[in-house]
């Protein structure tokens, strides 16, 4: 008898709870699938962990809408997504440098956006130290979105469905810089690329293995490239000069540190999805992987702060070059690039 009544009580309570929960979800349609931040098993622990910014479908949906909202820019022509295109792994296809408001050309190549939750610093010079404050740079740069946070707040406050979306995401229609930045982060930090062929081989998934060329390329890569392009992110996130110019036109890292030995240094970029992130280098000077490999084999200039590991360049014969390129293409993550959850909807 006792047991039976307990079962009934529990059942009744669960139904009541479920009813209460479903009530809260009225209003703006949430994304159908629960948005999660998942750490691939071959990745270390992330730097950003959503502890102070609880991830929700509503927060993600708002962040994504803001990311693709061109009306935030000074002339309503440029959104984050303009220079960070999903089909280019959120880099900017065919643009050497980013193309901002009023047709202004920026000075650096828009980097791809993925695995940002593992980065401690952002931008080519590492000037920004927290993913949450990264968008402020693009928002205020005269050559990117050319606006300011006050103008954006005023726009969002007076434009449906934003106040309602903020309420869904953060529990209040109050809109300030903090909730704008936190919602954008709920979108950008969730962009995880860890399902390339390389990852699946490393995780020994479904018996997937490298071809002979890919395997030879991987062996070569580990011998010649990983001292900078370290696994699993294919960057060690350090700042180095790779001898593009005798004297760099862009001061790079020293703009942030004020240290002369950092002049002309830029963050080592990830090689993940490199098949789709052309053009390459901080100023987008190379359009193809062959041009990049040509640079390392014969184009490295003896600039003042040249990385010691590149003093003699990196020579590859023709078959090695084919193998390296075959390996680099295993870093393409089509599940990421084609994931409709990240697309403008």
């Amino acid at each position, binding site marked *: 008898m*006792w047991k039976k009544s*307990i079962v009934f009580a529990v059942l009744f309570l669960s139904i009541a709870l479920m009813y209460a929960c479903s009530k809260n979800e009225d209003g703006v349609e949430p994304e159908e699938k629960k948005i999660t931040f998942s750490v691939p098993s071959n990745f270390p622990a992330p730097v950003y962990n959503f502890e*102070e*910014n609880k991830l929700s479908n509503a927060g993600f949906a708002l962040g994504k809408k803001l990311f693709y909202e061109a009306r935030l820019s000074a002339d309503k022509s440029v959104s984050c997504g303009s220079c960070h295109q999903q089909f280019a792994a959120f880099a900017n296809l065919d643009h050497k440098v980013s193309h901002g408001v009023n047709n202004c050309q920026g000075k650096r190549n828009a980097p791809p956006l993925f695995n940002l939750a593992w980065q401690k610093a952002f*931008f080519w010079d590492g*000037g*920004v*130290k*927290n*993913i*949450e*404050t990264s968008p*402020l*740079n693009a*928002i*205020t*740069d005269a050559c990117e979105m050319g606006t300011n*946070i*006050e103008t954006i*707040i005023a726009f969002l406050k007076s434009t449906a469905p934003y106040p309602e979306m903020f309420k869904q995401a953060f529990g209040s229609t109050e809109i*300030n*810089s*903090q909730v*704008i*930045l*936190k919602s954008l*982060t709920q979108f950008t930090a969730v962009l995880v690329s860890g399902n390339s062929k390389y990852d699946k081989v490393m995780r020994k998934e479904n018996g997937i293995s490298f071809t002979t060329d890919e395997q030879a390329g991987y062996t070569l890569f580990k011998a010649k490239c990983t001292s900078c392009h370290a696994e699993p992110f294919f960057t060690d996130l350090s700042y180095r000069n790779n001898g593009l110019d005798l004297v760099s036109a862009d001061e790079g890292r020293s*703009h*942030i*540190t*004020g240290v002369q030995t950092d002049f002309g240094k830029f963050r080592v970029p990830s090689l993940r999805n490199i098949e789709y992130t052309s053009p390459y280098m901080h100023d987008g000077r190379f359009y193809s992987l062959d041009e990049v490999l040509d640079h390392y084999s014969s184009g490295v200039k003896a600039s003042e702060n040249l990385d010691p590991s590149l003093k003699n360049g990196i020579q590859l014969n023709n078959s090695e070059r084919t193998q390296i390129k075959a390996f680099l293409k295993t870093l393409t993550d089509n599940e990421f690039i084609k994931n409709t959850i990240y697309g403008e909807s």
Partner: protein
Amino acid sequence: MKLLQYLLALICPIILLSSCKKSDNEIAVDTKSSFTIEFEHQVNGAELALNTTTYKNAKGEDFKINVFKYYVSNIKLSKADGTTYLVPDGYYLIDESKPTSKLITINDVPTGDYTKIEYTIGVDYARNFAGAQTGALDPINGMFWTWNSGYIFVKLEGTSPQSTATNNTLTFHIGGVVDPNNTIRTFSAEINSANPLRVRSDGKPDMHFIVNAASLFTGTTDVSFATLNFTMGGANSVIVANNYTKGLFRLDHIHN
């Protein structure tokens, strides 16, 4: 029946625990109160007036001030017996153009006699990198660098006929937390033990500080606007920070 026994076993400790709590409350005698700090802005003894009045730096060069604002944070009070109280989550942006910002209220301070006050001129290292903030630390206040993230600790803008910058402007944005250009500075003042800061449940004292904007340009290195009229972090900001560490704040008096 068994269930009843379990329930009893569960309830007894709860009752015991809650009874413990009660006696704790009775023992607690901590009382808290508040005090205020007033920042009076001056330039070498004269009242600071934005945009209009001409002042002289230590080199005898004329200048006017259009913007003067700064952060005070991590306020720490000490008693004569060495015990201290750190004001939690306390970040204050004092702005000459916003008179109400020049009077701050510190709440929930344990009552007692305090004989020393210390605070950070600027924002501590961790908060510079802590992500999106609100209140005094909201980037909307124009005290946050977007390209090299971190807070501007002290901002003074103005003009001087000696400045070689376009329109003779002066731009002193002092900040940066990484060596060798770390500009985090701490101010401390001993309080006369004959008239300590007496925080009482029925008495809310007021501390009055004189803030000398001209201290940015003298103290360790006399600044000439002909050679230094623009800094946004870096080595020149360190020169200015080393100057104002010495003379920006002076505890003038306390009303108990």
